[in-house]
Structures are given as structure tokens and as C-alpha cells.
């Protein structure tokens, strides 16, 4: 329940200690998608037998190229769309279940760049949200998201960044246990994006989160696991740390003699390497163990090595590896 296990601080800033994704007796999985297929009228298939579950306390990102089915999946989870087959549930309740709204009240949703009402003020909207959720503290979220000077302003008159803050404030009014974030920073300038990230870092810990994003750096900074979709299918659902182990780290080497001389010196060392501009990229299994020896060998060969650094694969590298560069327009 909202507020359970909270430390000092406002209600929306609840932190909960989850037991590593394990479910308590009688507790349901917050978000579950089971063998879901979605075919739109006209025959367009958006999802094909998609299954995954987001455990309590898990912060997952939903990644995929354009047209992969991310938005469809978010809309299915919000109950706006119904699957053609399979089941989508929040806390074990599907949209067809009588208690679905009760489950939805435990979920805060930030839609993807929604429109803003021209005839409702910020206060009107937050009041509507609180009434529908049945609980919540408006002054607290208004204060937390810096909306106090704008309470009587019409929603459509807010700047893009303030509109996004309002969306997040609305999602957090009732201090929900789960957050569904559909591209929360798309279309924002860097300053507003940074603000949103700051707010998200405050509110995400202790909550179950599914973040749908195109921004891989954002996903990497905010989430610990990734669900990757492609052409309506789940390619994988894994912890990002586990994903990292799939790609070897790279040792970037530069020497004053140039990459050709470096490559010559590396030949015969039993290492795979590639050229990139003035650098040579060496693929190593254990950078910490192999780099010192390699560096000694190069210096011993008379090369003036002025750069030797380890680059661990980013989520972007992992994404490219999984999805394939041709489809990676996430």
C-alpha cells in the first residue's frame, strides 16, 4: 500500500525496501504481460505473443526501434487498448476484471507528450486526478514539482517543461506504488530533460517502474533492467548488468607512431582488434588483468603510447548488439 515502509519525507517521495523482486504471500506481480498479441483494425499486427513481468521494486526500461510496439504495450497496460489475445494485468487484475480500477489506482502513469486542456487550470486538473484516485496531497506535489506559481494558470499556457512536470505531479498525487513512464523527456530541451531526470531520480527508488524511452542514456541512468522489443516481439528481458557481460570491454590505445604501428605490435598477441580513426580498439575479456601486460609489451616495443583506457559497453552498444544496427533507430 502507498506509504508502507516509508521513511521521513513527503508521501510522494516514498522509499520502500523490496525483497529483491520476491513476492510476499498473496501479493501479485505489479505488471504482467502474458502471450499478448495485438492486431489493429486493418490487420496491422503491433505485438506478437509478448510476455514479460515486472517484479516489485524492479526499474525496467522498455526499448525498441520505432514501430516495435512500445506505445501499444503501454496503452495495453493502462487499459486503453485491449489485447487481441493474451492477458495484460496490473497487480493480477486484467482490464476485464471488476477490480481493475482499484489496481490502476496503484499505478501512476506519465503519458507520452499529452495535450493540455485550454479550459482547465493546473489546480482543476490535479483536483480531478485526486478525485479519481480517491486520495492524494495536492499541495505536496505542487510544492515538490515547483508548480505553486502556476496553480491558477490554464494547462495549455504552461511551457513544455512545466507541462511535463504537471504530468509527473499528476502521476504522483496519490503516491502510487508503480510508475509507467512513456517517453517522459521526448521533445524537451536539455535543461528541461535534466530537470525531469532529477525528479525521476527522486521518485523512482522504492517503486516499480516501467520506463518507455528512446533515450538509451536515460534508460541506463534510471533503470536496472531492460525489455527490448523488436517487430512486436520481446527479444530479451534482462538486468542491464547481465547484458553488459554479453559484450567484451574494449581497450582504446593511441600511440604517437599511429594506429598501423600499434596494430603491427599487437599482431601475434592473440587479441582481436579493430581500427577507429587514430585509435586501435582491442577486445579483451578482462581489461584490468590484461591491460598492464599489454601496455608493458607496447612500451617495450618502442611505442610511445599516450592513451590506454578501458571502455565498458554502453546500453547503446548492448542495444545495437541485440537489435542489430540496421533496426536500431530507438
Amino acid at each position, binding site marked *: 500500500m502507498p506509504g508502507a515502509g516509508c521513511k521521513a519525507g513527503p508521501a510522494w517521495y516514498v522509499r520502500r525496501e523490496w525483497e529483491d523482486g520476491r513476492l510476499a504471500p498473496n501479493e501479485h506481480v505489479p505488471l504482467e504481460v502474458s502471450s499478448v498479441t495485438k492486431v489493429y483494425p486493418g490487420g496491422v499486427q503491433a505485438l506478437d505473443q509478448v510476455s514479460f513481468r515486472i517484479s516489485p521494486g524492479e526499474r525496467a526500461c522498455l526499448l525498441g526501434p520505432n514501430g516495435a510496439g512500445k506505445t501499444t504495450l503501454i496503452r495495453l497496460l493502462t*487499459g486503453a487498448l485491449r489485447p487481441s489475445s493474451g492477458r495484460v494485468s496490473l497487480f493480477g487484475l486484467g482490464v476485464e476484471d471488476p477490480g481493475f480500477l482499484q489496481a490502476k489506482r496503484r499505478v501512476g502513469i506519465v503519458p507520452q507528450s499529452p495535450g493540455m486542456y485550454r479550459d482547465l487550470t493546473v489546480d482543476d486538473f490535479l483536483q480531478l486526478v485526486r478525485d479519481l484516485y480517491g486520495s492524494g496531497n495536492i499541495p505536496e506535489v505542487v510544492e515538490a514539482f515547483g508548480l505553486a506559481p502556476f496553480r491558477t494558470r490554464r494547462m495549455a499556457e504552461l511551457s513544455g517543461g512545466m507541462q511535463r512536470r504537471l504530468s509527473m505531479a499528476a502521476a504522483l498525487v496519490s503516491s502510487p506504488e508503480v510508475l509507467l513512464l512513456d517517453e517522459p523527456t521526448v521533445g524537451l530541451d536539455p535543461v528541461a530533460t535534466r530537470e525531469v531526470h532529477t525528479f525521476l531520480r527522486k521518485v523512482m527508488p522504492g517503486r516499480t517502474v516501467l520506463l518507455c524511452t528512446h533515450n538509451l542514456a536515460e534508460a541506463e541512468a534510471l533503470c536496472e533492467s531492460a525489455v527490448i522489443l523488436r517487430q512486436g516481439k520481446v527479444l530479451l528481458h534482462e538486468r542491464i548488468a547481465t547484458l553488459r557481460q554479453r559484450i567484451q570491454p574494449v581497450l582504446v590505445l593511441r600511440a604517437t607512431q599511429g594506429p598501423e604501428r600499434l596494430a603491427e605490435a599487437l599482431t601475434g598477441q592473440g587479441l582481436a582488434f579493430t581500427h577507429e580513426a587514430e585509435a586501435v580498439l582491442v577486445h579483451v575479456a578482462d581489461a584490468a588483468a590484461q591491460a598492464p601486460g599489454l601496455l608493458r609489451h607496447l612500451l617495450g616495443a618502442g611505442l610511445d603510447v599516450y592513451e590506454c583506457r578501458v571502455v565498458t559497453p554502453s546500453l547503446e552498444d548492448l542495444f545495437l548488439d541485440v537489435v542489430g544496427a540496421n533496426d536500431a533507430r530507438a
Partner: protein
Amino acid sequence: MLAREVRILFRKEWRQLVRSRGAMLTALLLPIILLVIVPGLQMLGMKTGAAKPVNLPPGVTLPPGMRELVDDPVAMMRAMMVPFIALGGLIVPSVTASYILITERESRTLELLVALPVRVGQILLAKLLALLALASLVTLVLFSVDAVLILGLGIGSPGYVLALLAVLLTSLTFSTTSALLVSLLARDFRTANNINGLLIGPTILVCFVVTLVVPGPYLSSLLLAALFAVGSGAATFVAMKVVTFERLLR
């Protein structure tokens, strides 16, 4: 008993409607002209002695709905009130529905509602109720002016007023359900207005044809009321078939 969510959403819709000058102006202006000014002036004119029996040339036969006119000049007034009342009931919902449904889609604010703990059907029901509430309020208040004039000036009996009320209520229902259907099918204001025009134009024609062809305002009122009721059922049936959130969110 309405669900709590529907009541909350209804209040939101009502607040938005009342704040929208455009929606209120279109909801009030045309019905005032059609339901009060035009029939009111005609009724008052009838009673100032301007009405005279119709002097038809020999061999000319009036259609069944107009035959009373030869003996009673006020019969023309009674007959023409039927399509005017029907028009009043037809116009308010169709104009307001465009505002209440299509604006929400065009401005992508529906995404905000979908994110809240409500069901799709509850969103639509609240909109439909707000639409009906505004249309009923406006037209019934204006119709009461007509009723007072009709009874006060002795133009018709209480039964005649009730027959007109049946036309008004059924035309309101027909217009509301068909406006919902149009708003679901149309992607924008212009398309909605075009479809509304295509729908309401022939409906108005049918109203006048029934008035001309069916003898007596009682019978023509009842027939129109029945036609509107059937039309409402058909529009609701089709709307239920096509109403999917894919359609609203696209």
C-alpha cells in the same frame, strides 16, 4: 446509479462546456432563433389579426398535412411548429458534440484521461451525459416559452404541446447518438461538420416532408418521434460497433 468515476468526469465536462464561449454560443444562439424567436413572432403575428383564411384557386389541392389550412389559418402555425421543434432538438447536440469529443481528440488531451483510473466507457458516458444535459437544459427551457405561448394564445391544446415535447426529446436523443457516432468516425472538426451536414440535411427534409404528407400535427409529431427513436437506436447500435479506443486515440 452512476459510477463515482462517471460523476467526477461529468463535472469536468460540464465545467469545460460552461467555460467554453464558443460551445455555449453555438448551443444557445441557433436554438433561441429556432425555438423562440421565429415561432414566437409567428404566434404573436397570428393573434394580432394578420392571419387570414387561405384562398386557393379552383382545382388546386393541398397536401394532406396542409388541408386544415383552408378552414383554420392557425393550423399552418401548428403544422410548422413540428419541424421547427425538431430542428431545435437536432442542432444543439450535433454542434456541442464536435466540441466535447473532437477537441479532446485533436488536442491529444484524451491521453491524459486514459492515464487516470477510469474506464474508456466511463469517459464516453460522462461526455454523452454532459452533452445531453446541456442540450436538454437549453432546449427544454426554450420549449417552455413556446409551450406558454401555445397554451396562452390558444394556438394548441395541452395534448399538442405534449406531442411537440415528444418530438423534441426524441430528436435530442437522435441527434446526441448520431453526433457521438459522427465524432467517432470523424478525425477532425471539418470532417465532423461535413458528416453532420450530410446527416442533418436529409433529416430536416424528412421532417418537412412528414409535416406536409401526414394529416394533422398530432399524427406527424408522433410519426417523427417514432422515426427519431428508431434512428437513435440505429445510431447507438452502429456507435457501439465502431466505438473502440483505437479509433479515439488514433
